[in-house]
């Protein structure tokens, strides 16, 4: 067997390969697989066993907020790329559709530009990483179309991005993509002027898409965005009673009025 053609072909070549394939690929795939019954019932025995989400299912209020923010900050460019809502009565559908479009293209750019070779997308439970980035990565976060293939990454020249959404404004990202060193001194990140029409104030289709993608990362978390003063998620705020929301808005308006008086 050890030196014969059939032994090497069947045992080493096929046998050992499939043994490894079984233990290293099939086993985890089965552990995370979902049966059709579970999908129908909408429940699963294990949080990690979730059906794969489509891009449309990934859009959440946090991301929508950022996407609409892009429309306000870069109105001309946004209108040029996505147009305006056709049905004024029910603009939600339009916004979600365009947001999914941007997210899909953004993901393609993230992969095509090789962003994932210098930025990881998972927080490990060691090396103080949860202090720096936020909650440790969970399996269910990766059960979606945009993690096909998974964007774990293997090198961090720049920081992890899986909790980046909402951390910085779209303006910041526009300037940073255009010329990173204007914002972070010594940054080794390449410049991406081809995401813009000549200036950071004019992101093109690709610019709007990559910013949408970056703002999506981590937008599904409850503790979002991840900086100290904003620990409450706007997802949670959406659940507040409408009356409460109005009072909150009034308070904010009053605060702003106070600020402008100073």
């Amino acid at each position, binding site marked *: 067997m050890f030196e014969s053609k059939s032994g090497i072909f069947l045992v080493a070549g096929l046998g050992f*390969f499939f043994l490894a394939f079984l233990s290293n690929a099939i086993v985890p795939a089965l552990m995370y697989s979902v049966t059709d019954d579970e999908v129908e019932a909408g429940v699963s025995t294990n949080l990690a066993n979730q059906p794969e989400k489509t891009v449309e299912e990934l859009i959440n209020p946090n991301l929508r907020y950022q996407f609409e923010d892009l429309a306000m900050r870069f109105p001309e460019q946004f209108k040029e790329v996505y147009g305006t809502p056709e049905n004024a009565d029910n603009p939600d559908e339009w916004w979600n559709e365009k947001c999914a479009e941007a997210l899909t293209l953004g993901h393609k750019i993230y992969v095509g530009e090789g962003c994932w070779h*210098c930025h990881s997308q998972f927080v490990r439970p060691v090396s103080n990483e949860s202090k720096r980035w936020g909650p440790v990565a969970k399996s269910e976060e990766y059960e979606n179309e945009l993690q096909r293939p998974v964007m774990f990454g293997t090198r961090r020249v720049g920081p992890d991005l899986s909790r980046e959404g909402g951390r910085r404004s779209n303006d910041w990202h526009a300037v940073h993509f255009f010329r990173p060193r204007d914002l972070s001194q010594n940054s080794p990140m390449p410049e991406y002027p081809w995401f813009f029409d000549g200036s950071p104030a004019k992101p093109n289709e690709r610019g709007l898409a990559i910013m949408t993608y970056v703002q999506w990362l981590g937008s599904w978390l409850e503790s979002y965005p991840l900086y100290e003063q904003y620990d409450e998620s706007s997802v949670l705020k959406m659940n507040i009673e409408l009356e409460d929301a109005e009072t909150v808005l009034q308070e904010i308006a009053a605060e702003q009025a106070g600020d402008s008086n100073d």
Partner: protein
Amino acid sequence: MSDAQATSVQDIQEVPDPKTLVEERLVIWYFLAALTYLVISMLGGLLMAFQLINHNPFSGIEIFSPGRWRMVHTNAVAYGFIANAFLGALHWAVPRLTLQPVLSRKLSYFIFAAWQIVVLSTAVGLLLGQAQGLEWGETPVWIDPVALLGLALVAVNFMAPIVKLKGPMYVTLWYFIAAFIWTFLTYAMGNFMPEYFVNGSSAGAVGGLFIHDLVGLFVTPIGWGLMYYFVPIILKKPIWSHALSIIGFWGLAFFYPLQGIHHFLYTPIPMFLQYGAVISTIAVELVVLTVVINFFGTIWGDGRKAVENLPIRWFYTGIVYYFLTCLQCSFQVTMTFQKLIHFTDWVVGHAHLVMFGVFSMWIFGVMTYLFPRLLGVAWYSKRLCQWHYWLSAGGILVMATDLILGGIFQGYSWAALFPWEESIAISIPFWMVRVVAGLAMFLGLFCFLFNLLMTWRLALKTNAVPKTGQHRAEPVAAGA
């Protein structure tokens, strides 16, 4: 070696002339293609290296995007340089070992053309931003089926002469047979599974398995197969221990494919699978030790040849680096080391030490040995051959040491929660040394290319361009 060959041939008198068996022109073509892609790859590596120290001369030009060139860098090395060089060496070694020609010469040329199209379209696809999100599987999705077909044809073309062989086979052919199947299966698994069938953490597991198997089940077995072929031939003596050869092959075959998940430790992939990958990785280091001992047993008593004979020096330097990189791996794969060094330049140093320090060095050795035989003239300049060796061997040692050390600094600065900018500032000196080391390696390659050009011109003067089956005077190889 000679025993195995003798028993595999019924009648020694019937041994055909190797020159009629080997399509030498194709070997040259493969080697030239390999060297072309190595130049492209190294230019991509240099571009990224200059970007990291903020001296990218092409900053802001889309087609020179360092992120895209980084992918060209790794893919051109794997599929352009190493695969082409291996195919060239296989066209030399397999017919000579089996005393049978490959299945079809026409098929050989077709594969050559198809493979160049695959690699070129990969490069073009990557530069146009069409990558697929998997390390070493970035090949745009529409090229994957063509590449897979090419790999299947390669297997058929080389398996034909091996199947005709009677009696026990020599070690080299064990490695080659296994590599043909493994490469095909690995490529299919890595390029189709995470893209179409699994997602999330399970895709991570498959992705880890793919990048690992590509090194372990394609590059490693063909590399060692070539060492088992060329080392005894040049030293003119058999491999020291046949038993150790068997342990080395079967140990690699069993343990190597089980380790894929060690690329993604501390991810949401189930822990028991991560531990399994760690244990089998440490097991394979012991297997590697047996192979290294076997090769040192073989050269024992002929130590001078590692100094005087240039191909042997390339081979044994690679073997020493292989031992070092595997030793490093058995540490870095533990959870303790992973905490610190994962995501850092330590891993980048490891990858360069393996791909350049070991497999590229072996390929350079094979080329240094074969080009004079293929062209029918001795090397134009032995001194340039020496420069190639020292710049490559020294450059990679400096680069690997520098990156491994830099990785430790990065790891500690992250764990200490320094601001991110601090960890960049800490890395800059290491990245500068890396540029210098990379330039040295590139200069070494330039010496080799210039030497090759001059040798070629010499060959044109002394004899006609080599043709199939033509008889020429045996040349004097460099240092041999």
